């Protein structure tokens, strides 16, 4: 899952980025409000962690501008402002969660996963499509009761496809989900990962729509 982290404090930002990476997130870190707004407009992040006291543009303004632009991604506000009026304002402006510093990394990760899950209309933590169960918290995949070992990239790719179950994602979209800044994307990387996934989970799970992209279909309820 690729998320945007907007935090101006060097030590905290560095720690959050490292910690969230450990927990399986792809983290892009910006240090001011204008950069945060620019990136949120440009990239399809799964979620954003937003500090409020940002230079150049206050976090609250960034949030308002992003919502104004119709960007609906889940936003978790992470701030030191703990006064109740601040919390209320934050949530009213468009935050999906409001967390006061300091926060436990595992809790932060769980909250982000929950936000992403809800944003995709998933009631349960685990995603299950066509007999394949994906647990985002444990980063594990099971098929027919047996664990399937996947690399980090393969897991992220499957996670993106299953979260958007029934929708076709283009190769570019999948690349944006899979790579944070500065990571080299080989030209046929997505095809290679799809190939590996098909080998491990069966060819039928991921379908190719020629010229458009890939999808994992939801089970159709037959009349």
């Amino acid at each position, binding site marked *: 899952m690729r998320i945007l982290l907007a935090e101006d404090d060097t030590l905290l930002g560095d720690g959050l980025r490292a910690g969230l990476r*450990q927990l399986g997130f792809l983290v892009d870190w910006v240090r001011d409000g204008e950069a945060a707004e620019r990136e949120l407009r440009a990239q399809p992040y799964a979620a954003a962690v937003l500090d409020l*006291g940002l230079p150049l543009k206050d976090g609250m303004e960034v949030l308002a501008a992003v919502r104004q632009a119709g960007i609906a991604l889940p936003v978790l506000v992470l701030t030191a402002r703990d006064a109740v009026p601040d919390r209320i304002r934050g949530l009213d402006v468009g935050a999906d969660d409001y967390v006061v510093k300091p926060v436990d990394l595992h809790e932060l990760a769980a909250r982000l996963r929950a936000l992403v899950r809800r944003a995709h209309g998933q009631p349960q933590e685990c995603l299950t499509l066509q007999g394949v169960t994906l647990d985002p918290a444990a980063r594990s995949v099971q098929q027919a009761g047996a664990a399937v070992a996947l690399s980090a990239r393969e897991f992220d790719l499957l996670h993106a496809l299953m979260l958007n179950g029934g929708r076709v994602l283009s190769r570019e979209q999948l690349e944006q989900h899979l790579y944070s800044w500065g990571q080299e994307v080989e030209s046929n990387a997505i095809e290679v990962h799809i190939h590996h996934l098909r080998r491990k989970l069966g060819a039928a799970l991921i379908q190719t729509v020629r010229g458009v992209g890939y999808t994992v279909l939801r089970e159709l309820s037959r009349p």
Partner: protein
Amino acid sequence: MTLPRSLQGRLLVLVLGTVTSVWLVIAVPTWFDARHELDELLDGHLAQAAALLVAQQTHEFEGDEHGGDDLDAPVLHRYAPKVAFQVFHEGRLALRSANAPAAPMVELGRRFETGFATVQIDGVAWRVFAARGAERDVQVFVGEQTGSRASILWAVLRSTLWPMAVALPLLALAAWWAVRRGVAPLRSLGRTLAERQPQALAPVVLSDAPSEMAPMLAALNGLFERIAELMASERRFTADAAHELRTPIAAIRTQAQVALGEADEALRRHALQATLQGCDRAARLVEQLLTLARAEAGATAALAVLDLSALVRQVVAELAPQALHKQQTIAVDAVQPCQVQGDATLLAVLVRNLVDNAIRYSPPRARVRVSVTRETAHVLLRVEDSGPGMTEPDRQRIGERFFRVLGSGQDGSGLGGSIVRRIAAVHQASVRVLPSADLGGLAVEVEWPARS
């Protein structure tokens, strides 16, 4: 006499006391005046009666020698027992009223023959008028008990004092009502204040407040305003402090957690280093907060005469390695001894904050200049740099607790400016933040009044 504590009781006592005193002051002359007039009138009557008796007796004695037996005249009026007369003819009692004694009412033989006298007869005071006939053989005494005069006087005064006595309680009631109405705005103010929430700091508005209460209300509302400002500033401080204290702790916690979960040795070392850095930052913040608290307490400033130039050279010597580390040029121009009165420890903190900020917020290879100069009327410390400087609004805000220019890339506490301002205030020095004309960055000037 101590007045009652309540304003209403006080006014009531004063009004009623004044009215009663005025009445008494008027009643006393009235009493004396009435007595005097009465005395004159009744004395006149006595004299008249005596004259009548003298005339009658002279006539009688000339006509026939008196019968001698019917000495006592009849009683004709209920007041008659209080009035008596005696007629002596050639030293013998010729006629008397029934209540008159046989002996002359006023001792004869004294030079007293005509005129008024007040005498005691059988323990009763009498007012007596004595008169003599033309032939000097008739001596008439007409007397009247003085007690009867007092009765008349009392009767007269009673008739005037009665209405007063009745009026006094009525007046008291009226005064009570009027006073109560008069102090109603005070009571309504008291009620308004009592009903307020402790946090309510809106101005008090009393529509029926009399003009005398306007200064008090204005003072009260002024006080409310100042308290509201103070509370807002404290709230801002709490919010800012929360931010400044939580962020380093959040960083420490996060980095420690990263270190715990990191398998890669290099990354774990990095996280641990960052944890230590966070601890240093938190420690520095706590240090700054304590310094600020001490400076704000102010009382610790032990003022002594010291050489600011020497102090500046010493502080810059301590900080110079930091500047050299950033390849900055730091120059001191403080040769001339400049004496100021101050606390050496606090002044060192002030200078250290200014120089440290100049180094910290200026980029590598920048120039920092510290100078101390003595002018005729003051001593001037100036710290300037060739750093990015500050915008006018930011320069205004420097000195607000926790104010920090965001995006400077430095993890300062935002307390340095507050500390400098506070220490300067303790030393009656003034602080100015300006753009540096020579170096293009920021210039901070602290000015002390010179010691003669």
